[in-house]
């Protein structure tokens, strides 16, 4: 009893720190990354290489008035930003950072993660709806249709992973991939799964970009069409929480991708597995998120839905069938 | 028959009585010349920037527009001019051709300053819609039959017409 109490507290504090640091400094990474891609310097005044910029931004946001415009649905308006943060932090509890680090190794962790991910969409819906702003409402409607369209191919590709690993426990899925990159789900040599799994990986990655509302799929924010979408009426930390929630969703998405497809904490050469490999993988994935965002223009909402229904869903279904067949054959 | 001649013939059709008289030497399109008969005047494009200078009565503006529309012209702009000392407004229409042979036609009509009413040509050229609104905005010239004659550039509650020569801010 005693040790488990301490353990829970330790993980609580640890995860909060992990979440907080990521939410703050991913913003810095994004700005620096964008700047380098655009051949600028990016933040450089606050602290060494602008590293204190997130603190300055946070201070600025906190010192501003939290404006609740007239005619908004007060309670929902205030709850929505918090709702954007909480599921992201909660879902970190089931992520296995390494063989021994992981707050809670739930049996149904994959299921839980997807359940929590849908709540993120609800926060956008509520925030947009409660704002009583036309742009925000369009944004809310877009975000729901986008989420619906992309959860299907995402779950279909996850089923292929679950079929291969025979488990819906993230930790066990990761353990199943240990021993070098040829064991990872994406390149899995055994049973010839590499034939289909790279497609699964690409589909999953596209879906996670769409699920986290990142460019080129940032239909809900779409600053040149909808001003700031669901965030239009938010000021101060209301806005700040949405931003932090967005970054945390990216972290969760990257963790999930790394665990499902890239062997979790496994070393590519089968040598020294450990938490550092996991960290390297998720930050490489996060960098890809940033890289993609600053490369492409935004797509259109019906193109986005077409992509999902006409390309991703058929492909992921075919993939599922082939994977199942491969498992049956071998 | 090249475009310039064809246009001249088409325009002359509107002014049967003055068609024969309207061929004075080119380059005399200025308003200082003695009051001109309405009709088509060929002017020097190198100097004045247009091939024909058509003076007509306000009620003929639409007829000219229909002829020019048939000949494939487009409306460049509509401008008003305030001749304060003559007590008249002038509405100047500039037509040109989109591609192909080049020909510019200037059509102008004088209206009484006290009661400035000109028929609209926005049903012939939709482009005229905004240009007529602008002319109404700046001069207070009413374009009869315009579907939506409200101010365009000035605020809707403005009660003045700033390009009139007697307007003092």
């Amino acid at each position, binding site marked *: 009893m005693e040790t488990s109490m301490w353990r829970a507290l330790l993980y609580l504090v640890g995860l909060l720190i992990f979440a907080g640091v990521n939410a703050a400094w991913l913003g810095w990474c994004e700005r620096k990354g964008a700047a380098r891609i655009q051949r600028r310097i990016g933040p450089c005044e606050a602290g060494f290489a602008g590293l204190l910029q997130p603190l300055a931004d946070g201070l600025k946001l906190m010192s501003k008035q939290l404006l609740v415009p007239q005619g908004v649905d007060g309670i929902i308006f205030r709850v929505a930003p918090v709702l954007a943060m909480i599921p992201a932090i909660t879902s970190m509890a089931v992520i296995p950072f390494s063989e021994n680090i992981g707050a809670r190794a739930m049996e149904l962790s994959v299921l839980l993660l997807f359940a929590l991910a849908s709540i993120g969409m609800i926060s956008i819906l509520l925030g947009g709806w409660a704002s009583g702003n036309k742009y925000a409402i369009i944004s809310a409607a877009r975000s729901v249709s986008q989420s619906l369209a992309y959860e299907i191919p995402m779950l279909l590709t996850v089923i292929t992973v679950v079929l291969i690993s025979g488990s819906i426990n993230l930790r066990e899925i990761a353990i199943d991939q240990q021993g070098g990159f040829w064991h990872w789900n994406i390149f899995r040599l055994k049973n010839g799964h590499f034939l289909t799994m790279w497609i699964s990986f690409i589909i999953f990655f596209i879906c996670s970009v769409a699920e986290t509302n990142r460019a080129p799929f940032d239909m809900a924010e779409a600053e040149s*069409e909808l001003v700031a979408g669901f965030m239009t009426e938010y000021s101060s930390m209301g806005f700040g929480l949405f931003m932090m929630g967005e970054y945390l969703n990216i972290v969760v998405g990257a963790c999930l991708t790394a665990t499902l497809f890239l062997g979790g904490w496994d070393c590519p050469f089968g040598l020294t597995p450990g938490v550092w490999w996991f960290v390297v993988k998720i930050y490489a994935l996060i960098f890809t998120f940033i890289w993609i965002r600053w490369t*492409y223009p935004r797509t259109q909402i019906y193109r986005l839905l077409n992509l999902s229904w006409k390309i991703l869903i058929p492909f992921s279904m075919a993939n599922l069938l082939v994977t199942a067949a491969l498992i049956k054959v071998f | 028959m090249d475009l310039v001649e064809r246009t001249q013939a088409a325009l002359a059709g509107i002014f049967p009585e003055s068609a024969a008289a309207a061929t004075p030497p080119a380059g005399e399109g200025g308003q200082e010349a003695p009051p001109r008969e309405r009709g088509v005047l060929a002017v020097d494009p190198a*100097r004045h920037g247009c091939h024909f200078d058509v003076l007509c009565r306000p009620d003929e503006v639409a007829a000219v527009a229909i002829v020019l529309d048939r000949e494939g012209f*487009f409306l*460049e702009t509509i401008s008003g001019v305030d001749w304060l000392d003559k007590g008249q407004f002038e509405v*100047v229409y500039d037509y040109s051709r989109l591609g192909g042979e080049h020909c510019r036609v200037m059509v102008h009509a004088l209206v009484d300053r006290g009661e400035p009413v000109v028929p609209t040509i926005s049903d012939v*050229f939709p482009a005229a819609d905004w240009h007529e609104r602008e002319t109404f905005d700046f001069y207070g010239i009413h374009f009869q039959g315009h579907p939506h004659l409200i101010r*365009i550039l000035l605020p809707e509650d403005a009660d003045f017409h700033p390009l009139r020569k007697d307007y003092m801010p």
Partner: protein
Amino acid sequence: MTVPVHLRHDETFVLNLGPQHPATHGVLRVKLTMDGEYVVKAEPVLGYIHRMHEKMAESGTFAQFMPYTARMDYLHALAFNHGWALVVEKAAGIEVPERAEYIRVITVELNRIASHLLWWAAFLLDLGGFTPLLYAFDDRERIIDLLERVTGSRLTYCYLRFGGVYNDIDDEFITGARDFIKRLRGRLPRLYHDLVTHNIILIKRIENIGFITSEQCRRYGATGPVARGSGINYDIRKNEPYSVYPEFDFDVPVFDEGDSMARYMVRMHEIEQSMRIIEQALDKLPGGPVMGKAPKMLKPEAGYYYSAVETARGSLGHRLVCNGDKAPYKLKLRSPTFSNLSLFGEVAEGMMLADALAFMGSLDLVIPEIDR
């Protein structure tokens, strides 16, 4: 994507796009009647940056209006300088030395490239791509540095004078311009086209969006890249040559599709054609003075004068009425985007919001020029 009328619902709402909106590039307001995300009716509301330039022209001398011309189209300011200089030179019968004409062409074309680059950047920004903006600004900055060397200002130039130009160009400008063209020639295919033009997201985003027929162009008086994107071969530099344009060998890019992609391609090709003109002009640049004889106080003969130039956005016309005084009696500016924008209401009907904004971006609006 447009929907048939019978699919629309009865419930609509009004969306005020602007005057403060990221996609309107200034203070344009568009009153959109929307059915969900579909535009049922679009009505541009103008005048938020109206400054009554025509009255200012009437209240000063001819020369005093020159600085104001640059304040209308701040992206292609030199073409507005050029248009005003041309109409006054026509009215007053002023001769321009040949070298000055060449310098005018070189600087105006450089400015046209800068304008198209900025349009490209801003258009991509409308479509949510931020990075191309900074690549284009990198190139545009080089043009502006070059122009600053000869004109003394960076954006709102007041460089042309009646009868010439304000300042001669030097060797450093000439080598700078040649270097720039070489650089842009390399960057256009490898950066601009590979990153953006061939990008599937962009193609899907602007292809088949915002069809304008050539007949619509004629009825609304749309000119410039908008008309050329609808299959109309109309460029004042070719159709009604002014300055020394007839001496250069260049093509007028025309695309028949009439969609936003066609207008995009027209502008991208125009950058190349402008580079060709500049190269030829630099090769042929004659010597001599850059300022001809012009009286200090102009008093053109009474009469009606019209002159048109091709700006980056279309045909800019000056309708000048003189009464023999030292001030213009009446000046009407026919600004190209005023006419181009009047198309918007008709074409945007039935589009989705994001497509309507992409279409608006493809019209290349400069609001101070619309509002004057």
